[in-house]
């Protein structure tokens, strides 16, 4: 084969990445701009941190951020447990009645337009209120439930993919050596699928932290999450403190993703090493 390095693929890649990152970079740049006009660079007074100060003094944004953190934590933890159960059942329990239904229900939220999920959950909550009197007020509880029900699907998919490429002989060996099934699950299965649990948890948190459409349907008065506040602010026009907020969020996520992927790579390497040593013995 002629090994003439094709130039157009790398240049398309560069174009794609520029397209993906330029908007984010411009937002970061303008978050340090002194001018209130977001796109006019005030070279006399910039760079400045005044929008960051304004951001932290904005009670509405801070309250909303704290609410989003709380919902995100509850959502991620519950979705991790439920999603792991669903993923485990789908891969390990063979054929049973309801499997097809469960498989469909765990992939449906991935493709359904959010607007439909939001509407249907709100109508459910209204119907429940009429029937059993709960939830009497929509707010943190209803938003969390709504977030869990779409996050479960993502966790299930991640856990499922991990379990499919999983060496069951390790579990069988542990069972042969007399470990109880619960012990096997805790000591062998869980540590092996823990990277999937971690990424499922992180993804669920992010999805919840980012959701505006579904939250808007199921939230009540006085329970505005951070994306809801940003959305209503941004609808009215560009505002510089949102740039500062975006910069903080982007940097946090970038650090988080890099650290967690390094951590996962490290663990994976350790594990392969241990396996190799165990097999060599």
């Amino acid at each position: 084969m002629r090994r003439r390095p094709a130039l157009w693929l790398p240049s398309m890649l560069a174009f794609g990445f520029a397209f993906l990152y330029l908007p984010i970079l411009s937002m970061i740049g303008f978050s340090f701009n002194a001018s209130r006009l977001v796109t006019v660079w005030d070279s006399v007074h910039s760079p400045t941190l005044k929008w960051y100060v304004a951001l932290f003094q904005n009670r509405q944004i801070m309250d909303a951020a704290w609410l989003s953190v709380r919902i995100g934590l509850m959502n991620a933890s519950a979705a991790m447990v439920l999603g792991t159960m669903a993923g485990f059942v789908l891969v390990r329990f063979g054929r049973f009645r309801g499997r097809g239904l469960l498989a469909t229900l765990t992939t449906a939220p991935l493709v359904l337009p959010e607007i439909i999920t939001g509407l249907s959950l709100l109508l459910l909550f209204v119907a429940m209120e009429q029937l059993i009197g709960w939830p009497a007020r929509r707010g943190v509880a209803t938003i969390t439930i709504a977030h869990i029900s779409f996050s479960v699907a993502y966790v299930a998919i991640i856990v499922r993919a991990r379990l499919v490429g999983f060496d069951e002989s390790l579990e069988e060996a542990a069972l042969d050596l007399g470990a109880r099934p619960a012990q096997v699950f805790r000591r062998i299965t869980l540590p092996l699928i823990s990277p999937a649990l971690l990424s499922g948890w992180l993804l669920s948190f992010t999805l919840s932290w980012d959701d505006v459409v579904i939250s808007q349907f199921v939230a009540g008065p006085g329970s505005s999450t951070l994306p809801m506040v940003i959305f209503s602010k941004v609808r009215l026009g560009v505002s510089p403190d949102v740039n500062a907020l975006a910069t903080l969020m982007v940097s946090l996520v970038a650090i988080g993703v890099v650290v967690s992927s390094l951590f996962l790579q490290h663990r994976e390497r350790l594990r392969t090493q241990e396996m190799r040593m165990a097999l060599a013995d």
Partner: protein
Amino acid sequence: MARLLPGRKVVTAVPLAWLLLFFLVPFLIVLKISFSEGILAMPPYAPMIEWTRDGVLSIKLHLANYRFLFTDALYVDAFLYSVKVAAISTALCLLIGYPMALGIARAPAARRSLLLMLVILPFWTSFLLRVYAWIGLLKDDGLINNLLIWLHLMSSPLHMVNTSFAVYVGIVYSYLPFMVLPLYSNLEKHDATLLEAAADLGAAPWKTFLRITWPLSIPGVMAGAMLVFIPAVGEYVIPTLLGSANQLMIGRVLSDEFFENRDWPVASAVAIVILLLLLVPIVIFQRYNRRELEGSG
């Protein structure tokens, strides 16, 4: 091993019950309300199933909401516009995403995971803020217009924000990773010896692509296309922030119907029609997705 696990029924029942209650039942409620009559009350719809005074169960199927949707030009236009926007955006995503996925799949193995992470990273950052960033770029006094005027390519600013163009940019930008990832996971599995054989036999690179790479990548193309098309049809945030108020996408119409007109039955009927419209793409996606998930196991 699974057979020995205690509480097997519980482990199955809990997630299934959760998803049934909070995913399937809500759709049945939407379906029911779409056949109800709108009334001025809270909740604003008439009960469909009622015991009349003489103890007869009456079930009223109110079809007027659907008839209304198909006769009012606003809804028909919004549906057609949404499908058009979603289809063109999907094509553009494919046009940009395919070379990217191919570029990553053909990159040296050591660099691949970094490139892949660069595709995924924006996906982890706030979708809302990334769409918002485009307002700053596309505005009349935004970065792009300032640049064009500074370069003397343009004497007056190009009006880009609040147009269909901005909606396309926003959707392609937001959904590009959804196209690249399934494509990459398909392209990465291709057998390189096939390409070498074709080259040895004298095929030109474009011919090798058309005859080998493209046909083999169809499952990835389909999965990626559906992953972009389906949510794009019902997109709400992007057209609201970047689009024009004169041309609404159906997601916005649903939301306005619900929150502003408080017409829950019509909003529900809109949701059901969107779902019916998306049924075929969803089934296609499920098929390719299942093959992907279970084929390797």
